[in-house]
């Protein structure tokens, strides 16, 4: 065997293994399935991480043709640098989620055997289809994997299918996934048109599509992948489906599956399509930033912990897609080295998001498991009952809020650098408006911090809001390991940015022909210098060391001056007010209130405010997504109107149907003869 083929072989082995275990698990008793499926998922993920890293460093484009599939259309598989990166992402972030899931699903395994083995089956199929999407090298297997990814995750989302709301959320998800899939099908169909090839990506790469046709393909890809990524206005399924799923599945969907949309976009826009137009990039930057702002505003006013995190995923996908847009913009203008910087930042953010959002969804899962409560208004004070979960979640929120020295900061810093240190673009209006993009990013980052303080402060800090904390237990050991893995990922990705960015060199080299890693590492592995040291540099280790050194210096000096370290416990001071109750703390609604007030125009708000004379005052406020009213409801009404119209044709009488057939035949004949006369 040729050694350079090996990474792809490993991936194939993992796919086969997962498929076998998935089918096997259907026949096993629940306890055995639990101890087989999740360790298998973990082992597979470890292998994938290794194979992906190997593929990134080895830089060998392994291809493989499997003689299965339709006759004359074998499956093409290929593992290049881009695929290797996403295989690494799936493996590395997956490790923590599977470890956690192993512990998390033990109650389900004990309670409901059939439901549990179904979950095991779809869990592995879901993982395998995500990997298959990444290594697919023809449109056929890509669509098959893409669809099985959507279907298996639909079944995972509807694990608790007895609940009506969850069935509805699942249906919405399925609907959106299929709208996206249709767009993708058309997209690949357009690419195939005129080539006469075998739908393989290799044949797409060889054709040059220009003008309107290329733009049509771009728009279809944006629609198809945007529906998966939650791009405005196709985000509606995301805040419904993610909370409905069991928490490890939410973590998988948010951390890993959304990244498949990014993968698909990069594959189509930079690899398969050889042309680009400037307006594509502009459109994606604008849409991405709008999505980010929209997502973070809605995240800040949620009271359901998982919905809050889901909206924050919308925000992060918006940032990621704006990064893709920025890359496209620079690529279109021929500034490949800055495009490489933007692409590296985007990929970095995708990796970071997989870790911190996975971590937070898992943390939310532990909260949910321990308290059976998703409503923040009833949580509080959990840091005392679940110190492990609270500690790991703290890492997660600091990363998500984009604070140094954690990982979220590095990628946002790199993206801002791409916005700021851009070269002169040929269009003066773009030169002027790009800094506004940086302004929106800054606003989004600050609002994300707001949403995260709300999330953590209300759920983990303060006093319990009517819940008995003595009955709440911390996460079990396996869950702790899973959380710990994700938190360690957040910290390491934040502290060693140069090492991480070097991984992306092979990807940017493959797609844009330029690398960032070498310039980024010019001052050594401790200093991240994306362009040049005098333009911008960042060193998280020195930053952390500096803060710690300052604290240490102060403690040593104070101790030497004889400052004692005594403390005692007492009742809280609270301006001397003794009748303090937990209900006087800010509720989730209260904490989000300023955002509601300032950005009222963005929200669909319904409020019931009690009158001063009310004996039993009751305050209620509900935030709804205005896009439902503006987009989805009219669309739905249109479809209903249309189908009612078509329904009129259905008379139920055979003579009418015969008349229709006859008329169709006549029209077709007329068309054919018309064509023949020409």
């Amino acid at each position: 065997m040729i050694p350079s083929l090996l990474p792809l072989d490993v991936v194939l082995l993992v796919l086969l293994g997962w498929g076998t275990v998935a089918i096997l698990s259907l026949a096993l008793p629940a306890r055995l399935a639990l101890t087989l499926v999740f360790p298998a998922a973990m082992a597979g993920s470890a292998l994938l991480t290794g194979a992906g890293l190997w593929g990134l460093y080895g830089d060998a484009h392994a291809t493989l043709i499997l003689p299965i599939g339709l006759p004359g259309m074998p499956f093409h598989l290929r593992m290049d640098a881009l695929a290797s990166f996403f295989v690494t992402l799936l493996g590395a972030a997956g490790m923590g989620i599977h470890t956690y899931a192993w512990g998390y699903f033990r109650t389900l395994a004990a309670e409901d055997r059939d439901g549990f083995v179904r979950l095991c089956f779809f869990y592995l199929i879901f993982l395998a289809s995500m990997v298959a999407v990444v290594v697919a090298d023809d449109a056929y297997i890509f669509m098959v994997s893409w669809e099985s990814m959507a279907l298996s995750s639909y079944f995972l989302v509807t694990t608790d299918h007895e609940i009506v709301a969850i069935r509805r959320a699942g249906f919405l998800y399925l609907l959106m996934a299929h709208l996206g899939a249709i767009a993708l099908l058309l997209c690949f169909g357009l690419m195939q048109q005129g080539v006469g090839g075998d739908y393989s990506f290799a044949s797409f790469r060889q054709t040059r599509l220009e003008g309107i046709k290329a733009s049509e393909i771009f728009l279809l890809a944006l629609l198809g992948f945007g529906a998966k990524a939650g791009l405005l206005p196709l985000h509606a399924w995301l805040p419904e489906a993610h909370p409905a799923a069991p928490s490890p599945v939410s973590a998988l969907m948010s951390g890993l599956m959304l990244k498949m949309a990014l993968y698909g976009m990069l594959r189509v826009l930079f690899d398969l399509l050889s042309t680009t137009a400037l307006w594509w990039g502009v459109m994606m930057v604008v849409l991405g930033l709008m999505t980010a702002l929209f997502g973070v505003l809605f995240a800040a006013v949620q009271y359901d912990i998982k919905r809050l995190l889901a909206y924050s995923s919308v925000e992060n996908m918006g940032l990621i897609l704006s990064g893709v847009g920025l890359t496209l913009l620079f690529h279109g203008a021929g500034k490949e080295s800055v495009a490489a910087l933007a692409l590296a930042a985007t990929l970095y953010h995708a990796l970071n998001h997989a870790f911190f959002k996975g971590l937070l969804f898992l943390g939310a899962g532990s909260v949910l498991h321990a308290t059976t409560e998703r409503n923040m208004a009833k949580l509080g004070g959990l840091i005392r009952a679940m110190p492990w979960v609270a500690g790991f979640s703290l890492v997660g929120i600091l990363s998500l809020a984009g604070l140094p020295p954690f990982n979220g900061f590095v990628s946002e810093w790199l993206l801002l650098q791409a916005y700021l240190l851009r070269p002169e673009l040929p269009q003066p209006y773009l030169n002027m408006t790009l800094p506004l993009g940086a302004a929106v990013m800054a606003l989004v980052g600050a609002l994300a911090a707001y949403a995260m303080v709300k999330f953590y402060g209300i759920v983990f800090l303060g006093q319990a809001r009517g819940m008995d904390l003595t009955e709440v237990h911390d996460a079990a050991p396996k869950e702790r390991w899973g959380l710990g893995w994700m938190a360690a990922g957040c910290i390491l990705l934040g502290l060693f940015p140069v090492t991480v960015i070097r991984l992306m060199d092979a990807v940017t080299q493959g797609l844009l022909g330029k690398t960032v890693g070498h310039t980024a590492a010019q001052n050594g592995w401790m200093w991240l210098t994306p362009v040049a040291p005098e333009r911008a540099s960042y060193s998280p280790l020195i930053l952390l060391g500096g803060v710690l050194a300052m604290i240490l210096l102060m403690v040593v000096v104070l101790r030497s001056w004889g400052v004692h370290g005594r403390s005692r416990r007492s009742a809280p001071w609270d301006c001397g007010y003794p009748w303090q109750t937990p209900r006087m703390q800010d509720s989730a609604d209260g904490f989000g209130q300023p955002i509601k007030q300032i950005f009222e125009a963005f929200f669909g708000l319904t409020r019931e405010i009690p009158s001063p004379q009310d004996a039993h005052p009751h305050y209620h406020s509900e935030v709804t997504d205005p896009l439902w009213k503006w987009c989805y409801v009219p669309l739905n009404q249109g479809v209903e109107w249309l189908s009612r119209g078509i329904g009129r044709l259905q008379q139920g009488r055979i003579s009418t149907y015969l008349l229709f057939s006859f008329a169709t035949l006549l029209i077709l004949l007329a068309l054919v003869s018309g064509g023949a006369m020409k």
Partner: protein
Amino acid sequence: MKASALAFQLVQSLLVLLLAPLFLGWVDQCRAWLQNRRGAGVWQPYRTLVKLFYKEVVLAHDASPLFRVTPYVLFGCMALTATLVPMVATDLPLAGAVDVIALVGILALARVFLALAAMDVGTAFGSLGARREMLVSFLAEPALLMVFFTAASLSASTSLSTIVTVLTHRGFFLYPSLAFSGVAFLMVLLAENGRIPVDNPETHLELTMIHEAMILEYTGRHLALIEWAQGLKLLAYVGLGLALFFPFGMTESGDWWALPGALLAFILKLIFMGAGLALLETLSAKQRLFRVPEFMGGAFLLAVLAILIHYLLGA
């Protein structure tokens, strides 16, 4: 050269750590004079700090480790920030670790920790203060970033050393973009340091306090650290303002002969800035809380305007 640059860094670190309470005292003293009071003298913040350091810490029953760690995190972040801002000399060796964006990040880290600690005990005032602080900051932080972006665009760098070096050598031209961002920066400075139009550091009036509401539960050495960090933050902001908008008289690190002159220039600038700040605070009244978003939105718009002007006029 490297060693002497490091020595400069060390000198500046010690200088800001020791000077921060003095600057706070000077502002308070000026304000007392303007209000026809005698004031407690410029050394009062030191006396307060010493008193607090030797007092016992009283923790609420439910205070978690996060609550106890926060004063240290806050102090570490602010001390590092104040150390890295070029005040007397440009081209500090450690300044490369933290550029302007990372600087905003460190300030945000400190703020998030403080807001979380305020919510930790679960008092009504704590969460109220945390919410208000986050409200002010989510508008102030982007404005501050935009101010920095304007300076970064002027000097084609986000590194503070390069920015200040470029701005020092630009001569006495009035850049319209810098004028706009200067006003925006001043507004951010007032808001982020809890000064008068946004917050009042002197009162514990329940309905209006922001910063004080967050630190109500802190006592003893914890409170001392927070107060000290607050002084460091004010000094860092004023130093940043001076470095961006009045960088004249600075020396390059390693140049020992120019140090006394630069030091003198810096202290003079601080005296003027402190007096100006006190005057500004005396002349204006505290705003209603719901005016604050408008105030901060104004700062954000000015900062955005500044960067647009920079690209429009190229200046």
